[in-house]
Structures are given as structure tokens and as C-alpha cells.
């Protein structure tokens, strides 16, 4: 039982990170029906910029005196940085193709993904970059459960971000405009919504969340690396689809499910660690077979290739 709970926490942490990345996929997909291949790169860039900022703060001696402030500040700045990066990518590589076939944009996104990944490699080097994990260390023991402070931090930050995003999308006018644009771009223009700006904002928010995930992955696992966006990118994409792509709550649920399945498969199925991705995908396929639009998917209209 203890081990089970322990694994639950592991799954929750991982799932929360997937959910943060999946949100960017799902929001962008919802609004312009693009599978943003470059999204994983925003996550990786976030991890790097975070560690760079922390290095600078450490050199100023700030990390010793105000560790929590530094982490918060680094998180915030990194999110802003990645939002700017995403807006630039959107402007350069996606916006000119707004009226072209969706596969053209997909390919442009792929090109951007390769470009950004190698850009990171060239500027940051091929070696892993270590995170100052000593800033947050320690375990909390609940009964027999051991939870690291970092895990608690990740879970709470993720929760705050998710709640904040929900409030943004469902409560504010801008959020409503995002949903309106996703549903009908022409009509939203006819009521005075600048869809270009709303799309850019969507990219910015999605990338900001991915950046937050990047920084937390850095802290949790101790290092970042230029190609780290790829695998979580695929998983998060799967999570977004599992939840019903375009649906924000769906992405959160999908992320948590994928994270849980992975951890549980690795923990409780013989030979499960090597096949854990298989289980994740099998769950995905089974769900989609019975619910072809995902767990929370609305009926998307028949827009295809």
C-alpha cells in the first residue's frame, strides 16, 4: 500500500508535467488546428533559460539569501521568455501559412522544431546542464511515504498554473475571445476580435506553461539537455489527444492519465518498464477506439488533412 501511494505521487508529478506541456498543444490545436511540433522545444528552451537565469542570480549571490524569490523570479522570467519565443516562431513560421493547407504548417512547425533544437545545441553545448538542485532539497515523511520538497513544489506550482489558466480561459474576456476564435474565426473577427493577436497570445500562454514545466523538470531531475523536448513532446501530444484535443480540461486529465499509466505499468507489470510507453499508447488507442474524439472531446467537424 505504501509503495502504491508512493507510485501514485510519482505518477501525479509526472502527469502534472505532461499536463502542463499538453495544454500548449491543445490550446494551439484548438485555435488553429495545428499540431505544433515545435512545442517541445519551448519546453527545452524553458529549462535552459531557467538554469541560465539561476546561474546569473547565483553569481550575484542572490540564491543564497533569497532562494525562493530567485526561483519564483526565474520561473516568471522564463515563462515570459518562452512566450516571446513562441510569438516570434508563430509570426515567422506559422502566420504566413494561415491560409495554406494544414500539412504545410505542420511541416513548417517541424522545420522550426529542428531549428530550435539545434539552435539550443549550438548555443548551450551538447552536454547536459546541471541545475542548482541544492536550492530545494529534503524529504517530507508522511507515515511511510517519502515526498521530496521538490515534488510538493511541482505539484503545487502545477496546480496553481492549471487553476490560473482555467480562470483565464473561462472567466476573463480575453479567454472567452480565445474560445470564440477557436470556434469561428470569421465570426470572431466580425465582432471585433483581432484573431491574429489572440492566436499569438495562445501561443504565448502555451509556451509559458511549457517553460514552467521545463524549469520544474530541470529542478526535479537535476539537469536539462537540448533534445529533452522531443520525448515529453510526443507524450504530451498523446495526452492532449487522449483528453480530447482542443479541450483544456481534457489536456489536464489526459496528462495525468498518461503519467499515471506510465508509472503504474512500470511498477506493477512484469517487464513493464520497457513497455511502459506501449501501455500508454495502448490506453490511448483503446480510448480513442471507443471514444473517437477523446475523453472530453467535443465533436470536431470533419476537418482533415
Amino acid at each position, binding site marked *: 500500500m505504501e*509503495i502504491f501511494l*508512493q*507510485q501514485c505521487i*510519482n505518477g501525479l*508529478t*509526472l502527469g502534472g508535467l505532461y499536463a502542463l506541456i499538453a495544454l500548449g498543444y491543445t490550446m494551439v490545436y484548438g485555435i488553429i488546428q495545428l499540431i505544433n511540433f515545435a512545442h517541445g522545444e519551448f519546453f527545452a528552451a524553458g529549462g535552459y533559460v531557467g538554469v541560465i537565469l539561476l546561474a546569473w542570480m547565483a553569481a550575484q549571490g542572490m540564491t543564497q539569501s533569497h532562494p525562493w524569490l530567485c526561483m519564483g523570479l526565474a520561473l516568471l522570467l522564463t515563462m515570459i521568455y518562452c512566450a516571446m519565443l513562441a510569438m516570434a516562431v508563430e509570426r515567422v513560421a506559422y502566420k504566413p501559412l494561415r491560409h495554406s493547407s494544414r500539412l504545410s504548417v505542420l511541416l513548417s512547425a517541424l522545420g522550426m522544431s529542428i531549428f530550435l533544437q*539545434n539552435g539550443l*545545441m*549550438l*548555443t*548551450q*553545448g*551538447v*552536454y*547536459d546542464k*546541471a*541545475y542548482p*538542485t*541544492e536550492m530545494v*532539497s529534503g*524529504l517530507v515523511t508522511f507515515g511511510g511515504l*517519502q515526498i*521530496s520538497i521538490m515534488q510538493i513544489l511541482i505539484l503545487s506550482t502545477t496546480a496553481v498554473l492549471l487553476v490560473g489558466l482555467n480562470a483565464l480561459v473561462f472567466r476573463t474576456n480575453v479567454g472567452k475571445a480565445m474560445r470564440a476564435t477557436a470556434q469561428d474565426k470569421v465570426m470572431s473577427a466580425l465582432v471585433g476580435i483581432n484573431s491574429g493577436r489572440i492566436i499569438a497570445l495562445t501561443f504565448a500562454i502555451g509556451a509559458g506553461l511549457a517553460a514552467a514545466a521545463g524549469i520544474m*523538470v530541470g529542478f526535479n*531531475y*537535476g*539537469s536539462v*539537455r537540448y*533534445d*529533452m523536448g*522531443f*520525448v*515529453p513532446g510526443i507524450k504530451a501530444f498523446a495526452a492532449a489527444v487522449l483528453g480530447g484535443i482542443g479541450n483544456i480540461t481534457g489536456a489536464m486529465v489526459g496528462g495525468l492519465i498518461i503519467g499515471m499509466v*506510465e*508509472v*503504474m505499468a*512500470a*511498477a506493477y507489470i512484469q*517487464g513493464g*518498464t*520497457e513497455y*511502459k*510507453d506501449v501501455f500508454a499508447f495502448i490506453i490511448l488507442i483503446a480510448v480513442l477506439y471507443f471514444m473517437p474524439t477523446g475523453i472530453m472531446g467535443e465533436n470536431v467537424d470533419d476537418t482533415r488533412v
Partner: protein
Amino acid sequence: MNRNMWRVLMLALALCLAATGPALGAKLKIGSLSPLTGPYAADGNDIANGVRAAIAAIEKEGGIPGFDGIELMAEDSACDPKQAVAAANKLVSAKVAGVVGAYCSSATIPASEVLAEEDIPMLTPASTNEKVTERGLKYMFRVCGRDDDQSVAAVTFLTGHLKAKTLYVVDDKTTYSQGLADNVEKLAAAKGIKVIAHDHVNQGDKDFSAVLTKIKSANPDALYMSLQNSASGALMLIQARRMGITAAVIGQDAVYHPQLMEIAKEAAEGAYLTFGFIDENTEAYKKFASAYAAFGKPGAYSGYAYDSAYVLLSAIKAAKSTDPAKVKAEIMKMDIQGASKKIKFMANGDSGSNYIIRMVKGGQFVNFWDPATGKTY
């Protein structure tokens, strides 16, 4: 390190541009194959830099008579059989005198077949899979050790020093890491150690919490960690220690990289690794260290790559020709102290292994235990 890297890249680009410029005289061309991009780019660049360092060292010693200098074609094998073969073909077309590489055994094997068709000598600094030299290729040499020898060293250490009763094995499913882990599992079982389980993780995984939670509840005496990448090793160490796993951790040469301590910091302390014995007091090592200084800290394979290139170039120098048969004869004659080990090739192209146990202590790798003598250093 960041800006250093940038400088290295600039230098590489400049070298490359220079290489494509008009040739002033007959230059001796050699090639290197290693993953310069992709997940193994770290080790791949170490290899390319090791070769560059060897060229610098040889040129400092007066170069090779009859040639106006040595030119390196550093090709990217990306650890992908397809690209490795393309790169090997490119080297063949460029008529290189010999090739140092590749890294991943799955790239080395098909690439070596291409080179073998044209009788181009190939010296691998890093592919430890037994098959590399066991296919009867005439011009295939291996400067690093072999997986089977490495597993022996690890198991000897388990029984001889750690006196472990139970063992947990984890690998990340590459040709190399799994082959090694399988050997360890087999040998350990034969030696009477109880292998609790042999789990696999995937390359590129960052989260090992699921498997580590299992390990924690199994509470083995030792954990054999066979991963392809030092950063993955560091991640596993951090997470294991954070969870409170106290088992002795034994890694292998792919985890052996200064990165391990950089990332894992104190979590790496006390970890054991099997690695070729490097005597840092030899003349050869000092020469290597000074030649490599321009490229930063040596990685795990920098020394082997340096030795491979050094052997190749000295053989060409001695043979006064690039004729493969003559070069091979010189290589076989060679019996020298290299930067990484004593080099003397056997008939099949292997040069023997000298694995010892090293340990992380105070953020440094130190020699710890010698399986041949069963003594701590």
C-alpha cells in the same frame, strides 16, 4: 564552459571551412565517425576532439614525412546506421587513409562493412560490443575494451570487494548497455549472487521514479546501472539517493564522464564505475592532456580517440605509406603506452582490456579497486 563550447564550435567551423578550401599540397586525410548531433553528441564530440588532439600532437612532433599536413574529416554518424553508412561512403570517396570511429556499435558495424570493402583501416575508440571485432574484418581494430571483459570486472568487484548477496540490474536498452547488463546478470548468477530483477528503462527517460521505487522496496545490496549516457546515470543517482536507496551503485564506462558529478553533485559520491585503468602519470597521458587542453576537459572517450588516431598516424608514419597492408603491419607491430592504456593489438584487432573499479570521491574519479589483484589502491 558555455562560451568555451561556442569557441570550439567556431573553431570546428573554421577547420571545416579550411578543409573545403583549396588544398595547398598533398595532405594526409583521415576520417572520424562519431555522433556530432543527436542524443550522443556529447561523447561524439569528445571523440572528434580526441582525434584533433592526436593530429595536433603528431604535427607538433614534426608531422608525417611526405605530407603537407594532416586533414581531418569529422563526419557525423548520428548513431544512426543509415547516416553512418552515408558518412562512411563519403569518407571512402574522399580516399581517407584510415578512420577513427564510430561510437554506437549499431553504427560502427554497418559503417565498418563499407570501409572493409575498400580496405580502409578502422579503429574504434568506443564500440565495446564483441561483434565489432568478431566478424573477421581484416582492418578492424579496437582500442577500447570489450563488454565481456568489463562485466567480469564488475562481477569480480561485487563478489570480491562488496561481498554483495543481492543485485538489481537496470539498463536502457541499447546494443551496448543491454549487452553488458545481460553479461553481468549471467555472471553474477553463476557466482551465486541473487539477481532480484533485471529491469529496462528507455533511452531519453528522465523519470526513473517507478523503477527506483521498486528497487527501494527490494532493497538489494548493489545496483548495477548500465546506461548509455552519463547524464541519465546522474539522473538515476539523484533520484535514487533522494528516495533513500542506499545500495552500492556500480556503473560502467558510458556513465563515466565528468558530467556525472556536475549534475548529480553529492548524489554521485561513492558511486563505483568500471573503466579502463588510466595512468595519469605516464608521459603519453601528459602529452595527451596538453594537446587536449584546447578542447576542454577530456571526456570518457577522448583518450581512446586520441590513442586510436595516434596509433593510426604513427603507423602511417612508420610505414611511410598509406597502403592498408603496410599500415596494418605497423599497427600490429605496435606495443606502446598510450594515453588511455597499453596498446598491443591481438590478431582479431582487439587490444585487450584493463578495466578497474573507479569511484567518485570529492567530485573526482579516483582509482579504487583492481580486479586483477583484488586490492584497493
